[in-house]
């Protein structure tokens, strides 16, 4: 795209030559950079202060308390998991013993289906892993 110099002002604004335009622009840039520099420095100092406050390492006591809290959370989670497992297991054991006495075909059918379901899930998982969809 070329500049249109055919008009009465030869493509420039009234009373401006290309040189004057360049000079005024440079002066403007200089003034704006002079104005922006202290602001920039102030901003950086503010950022430094914020990060300095955040980057203070926790005290030993705080760290210890955090570790104890994390360990307690872990212990509670494990306990909840065991309780849930035992609860489900008791039901399952009861149903299994009931099924083996009253409906053995059903019991053996379920026993056959479980490994088949496991193998299908394993194959699907390996397939996903092979295609790179796995984490």
């Amino acid at each position, binding site marked *: 795209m070329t500049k249109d110099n055919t008009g009465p002002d030869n493509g420039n604004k009234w009373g401006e030559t290309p040189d004057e335009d360049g000079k005024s622009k440079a002066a403007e840039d200089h003034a704006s950079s002079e104005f922006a520099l202290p602001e920039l420095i102030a901003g950086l100092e503010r950022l430094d202060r914020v990060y300095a406050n955040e980057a203070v390492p926790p005290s030993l006591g705080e760290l210890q308390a955090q570790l104890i809290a994390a360990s307690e959370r872990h212990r509670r989670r494990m306990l909840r998991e065991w309780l849930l497992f035992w609860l489900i297991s008791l039901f399952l054991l009861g149903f299994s013993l009931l099924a083996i006495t009253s409906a*053995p075909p059903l019991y053996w059918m379920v026993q056959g289906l479980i490994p088949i379901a496991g193998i299908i899930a394993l194959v699907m998982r390996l397939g996903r892993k092979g295609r790179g969809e796995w984490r």
Partner: protein
Amino acid sequence: MKEHSNLPLWAWVVLAVLLMTQGTLLFRAARDLGRWRWFWGLWGMTTFPLPTILYLLFVVFPEHRRKQKDITEQDKKIRK
């Protein structure tokens, strides 16, 4: 069927204890390895000894082989 129902009480108790022990151990072992703990644990509660055999075949032995392979590779790297 009938033959199952005719089992004495002590046999039922032994069977229940066996299943609970198997399920619990499988759940714990699979949790430590991070491999489908609920599947192995709950299946281990329902029958014996197929879950233990398949757990050994599909989880324990492959894991053992993988570890051995890792150790061999590490050893080769160190020797080079």
